[in-house]
């Protein structure tokens, strides 16, 4: 006999685990189905920062604040395991006076949205980050949020889901979704048996379009690759999460050459953050790609960018490079939505903010399934917003 549950979550990354967590917490019986191991895809190949620094002003920034507060609440009050939460603030660096003026504008906008941030001049910046290149002009400091290890976060969420009575079926592949005569979701078929359910949440990230196809739902999520370089743990590069503001001024329509053209081609900018294991992660890149191998051209451009901001890093070892595939949505906002198929929900397309948005996304899906009012305006996250 097939088992029967209130909801089936497809995908064992941070998004799927967050959904399973909220559904179980709200008293629903839930099975999470994952084709491989937990946190084995995009969630294991990202950084884990949860800061509110570069979101558009207004509602999007407000939602991001809510999302980050959900992460913090989980990490500090709900999960039973340490996830290497680092709460040390962050700097958005301005290379010169012109960028500093842009930074001031960004800082003002964020302050108007209630985000805790302030401008920091060169002297204070270099006192806080002694290895920074001397010519870096200044920075915005953000003091809300923090960073974590997405892998530890995922496993901790998985344990919590099971503690709350949820079931996790790893190494189980979804082979189809059967619908009832009225068109609604009825059964999830897997290579390890069928599961009867009225609710299916597609949280398969970059693979979510394939799951959508099983019920005829078109999900416009594509793969956007990103590389990270890992520095050895013997040397402390930065004391906190640090990124550059200049990346935002590198537009696709600019005619550039040399190194700038490589940066433009692969969407390369600088960030670094210390991890709980005392390595430094160096980012970042952003370009369409479907494999998780790293390539020399990108690694080199990222390494050069890192040396520009932290010259001492030239003598530090890279021990590993990795790349992940962000589930990209056309307007860079996640899809957290009901669909034309009753009982089939999409929670995907979180772009580069899946860790920060995961817990809130799960909460919002649970609210939808329970028929409650959502914490935020859901129109922005509706699957069909792209049709207009």
């Amino acid at each position, binding site marked *: 006999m097939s088992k029967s549950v209130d909801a089936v979550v497809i995908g064992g990354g941070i998004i799927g685990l967050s959904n399973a967590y909220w559904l179980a917490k709200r008293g629903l019986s839930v099975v999470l189905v994952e084709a491989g191991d937990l946190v*084995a895809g995009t969630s294991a190949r990202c950084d884990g920062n949860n800061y509110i620094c570069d979101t558009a002003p207004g509602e999007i920034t407000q939602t991001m604040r809510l999302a980050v507060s959900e992460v913090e609440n989980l990490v500090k009050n709900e999960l039973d395991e340490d996830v290497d939460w680092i709460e040390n603030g962050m700097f958005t660096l301005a290379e010169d006076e012109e960028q500093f003026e842009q930074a001031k504008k960004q800082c003002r906008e964020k302050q108007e949205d209630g985000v805790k941030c302030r401008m920091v001049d060169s002297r204070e910046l270099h006192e806080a980050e002694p290895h920074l290149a001397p010519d870096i002009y200044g920075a915005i400091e953000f003091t809300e949020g923090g960073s974590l290890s997405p892998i530890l976060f995922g496993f901790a969420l998985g344990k919590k889901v099971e503690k709350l009575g949820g079931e996790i079926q790893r190494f189980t592949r979804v082979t189809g979704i059967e619908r009832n005569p009225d068109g609604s979701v009825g059964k999830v078929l897997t290579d390890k048996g069928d599961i009867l359910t009225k609710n299916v949440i597609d949280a398969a990230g970059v693979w979510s379009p394939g799951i959508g196809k099983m019920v005829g739902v078109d999900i416009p999520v594509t793969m956007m690759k990103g590389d990270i370089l890992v520095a050895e743990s013997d040397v402390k590069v930065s004391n906190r999460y640090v990124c550059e503001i200049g990346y935002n001024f590198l537009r696709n329509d600019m005619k550039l050459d040399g190194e700038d053209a490589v940066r433009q081609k692969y969407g390369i900018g600088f960030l670094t953050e210390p991890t709980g294991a005392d390595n430094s992660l160096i980012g970042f890149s952003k370009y369409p790609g479907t494999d998780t191998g790293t390539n020399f051209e990108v690694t080199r451009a990222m390494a050069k960018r890192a*040396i520009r901001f932290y010259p001492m890093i030239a003598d530090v070892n890279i*021990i590993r*490079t990795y790349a992940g595939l962000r589930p990209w949505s056309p307007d860079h906002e996640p899809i957290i939505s009901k669909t034309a198929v009753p009982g089939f929900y999409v929670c995907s397309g979180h772009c580069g903010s899946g860790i920060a948005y995961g817990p809130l996304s799960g909460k919002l899906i649970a609210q939808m399934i329970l028929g409650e009012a959502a914490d935020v305006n859901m129109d922005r996250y509706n699957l069909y917003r792209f049709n207009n």
Partner: protein
Amino acid sequence: MSDITKTGFLNSAELREAGRYPSEERLAKGPTAVIECCQNIPCNPCETACRFGAITVGDPITNLPVLDESKCVGCGVCITKCPGLAIFVVDKSKDMATVSFPFEYLPLPEKGDTVKAVDRAGQYVCDARVLRVNNAPANDSTPIVTIEVPKELSDDIRSIRRLNLSEEDEKAELLKIDDWSAVPDDLVVCRCEEVTAGDIKKAIAEGAATVEGIKKRTRAGMGLCQGRTCSKLVSRILGSQTGMKADEIKPDTARMPIKPVSFGVYKE
């Protein structure tokens, strides 16, 4: 002709053809070194080890060593100095030939033992008697075993079976030695990240089913050496705990740059 890229060695006919085997006249006079090195790698301890100047590598250091058989006295010092264990001493001066070879396995055979002689491929050739086991401190833990074999087989016999058992029994015994199920919990498996066998067993108990799954749960293999030291041990422990066979366990994904290189290297 065998294909060295598939077998990993040159046979005696190929060595002869390449002019890299002592002459029969020299072998008939007494012990002589047989240098079976066939890799042009930067390596010359054999040259400096020979007190009689019988071995020449010269410049460049990637040359293959050349033996001057008139100078060689068959002392066997070079056997212990060759990191590739590619040097032997053969003596065809008496009714029975002798073959001396490096043997870095325990337990060592003892003088007078009857052992199972094998060829370069490790295949059984014949039974043989052990004449000498030389494990002097100067050998630096590379014992030399000398066995007595029929002359006509002495060009092919190059070692003995490790445990002196039949092939089947030996395989079974070696698998027993390779049993990691009783590995002590406090054994440090990943030195870079200080992960113990106990941590790894715990991760397996919590559901890790791959080397990568163990890595994600424990950080074994995430340190400076990127698992070059520990990943084989991790997969053996995984096998011993789950019953998975070695060929069912996928190795961890290798990530560039494989060996640590500085950011500065990428600048140019």
